[in-house]
């Protein structure tokens, strides 16, 4: 392996579908290159590991100029659902797994999945609300300590 990257640590703080997939694709891509990877889910990123929410993540249609939908129209009822449906359809064509399956793939691939203690307390979440594949609930300090080898990179999403 020629890359000097040995470990990728991701902090996922958002729950819009494009951000969650960005984290997942990069974390999985790292494992497939023989690079270690871990994800720390905090704030809205926690939606991606809540059993009853993870399949209902959406694309933001307001405040997202790259979608080229005028803001007033993007705010109409049903627009988010429609845009999300279209995006999911395109993802399926590329064989991108849905969130739940992607989490299973990541966990089976050896990517560690962590919940942020502070945010979990703040949102009054219980362990049972979160996916079974979660490796634990830790603090940001604990997560920094996971950066324990040369060639570790940390990304905030």
């Amino acid at each position, binding site marked *: 392996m020629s890359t000097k990257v040995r470990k990728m640590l991701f902090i996922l703080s958002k729950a819009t579908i494009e951000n969650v997939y960005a984290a997942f694709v990069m974390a*999985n891509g790292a494992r497939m290159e023989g690079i270690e990877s871990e994800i720390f889910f905090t704030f809205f990123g926690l939606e991606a590991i809540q059993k009853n929410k993870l399949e209902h993540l959406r694309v933001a249609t307001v405040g997202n100029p790259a979608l080229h939908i005028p803001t007033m129209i993007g705010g109409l009822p049903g627009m988010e659902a429609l845009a999300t449906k279209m995006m999911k359809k395109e993802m399926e064509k590329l*064989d991108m797994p849905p969130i739940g399956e992607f989490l299973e793939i990541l966990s089976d*691939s050896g990517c560690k999945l962590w919940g942020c203690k502070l945010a979990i307390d703040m949102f009054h979440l219980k362990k049972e609300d979160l996916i079974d594949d979660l490796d634990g609930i830790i603090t940001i300090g604990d997560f920094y300590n996971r950066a324990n080898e040369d060639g570790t990179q940390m990304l905030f999403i």
Partner: protein
Amino acid sequence: MKKVFINKEVDVNEEGYLIDFNQWDREVAECIAGECEIVMEEKHWEVIEYIQEKHQNSEPLSIRGIKKSGVINIKEFYGLFPGGPLKKATMIAGIPKPKSCI
């Protein structure tokens, strides 16, 4: 680029992947595996045959596909080919490195 394994000369690209699948046989595969520090056993061959078949049918290879393969699960796959399983398995199988990001 030429590469010599035991008594056989094969053509590989700069990453070490065979260019011509006709030059592939189990001995070549074992030599490539050896370079990846993998000792080929029955389960490895099963996976290699599976991905060769996929390739022959022009079906793209992905980690999701491995999950659905029925041949092996993802954990075992990482266990058999440590450090980039799809990359290594395709190299041993004598087929091109998959271009997929997933």
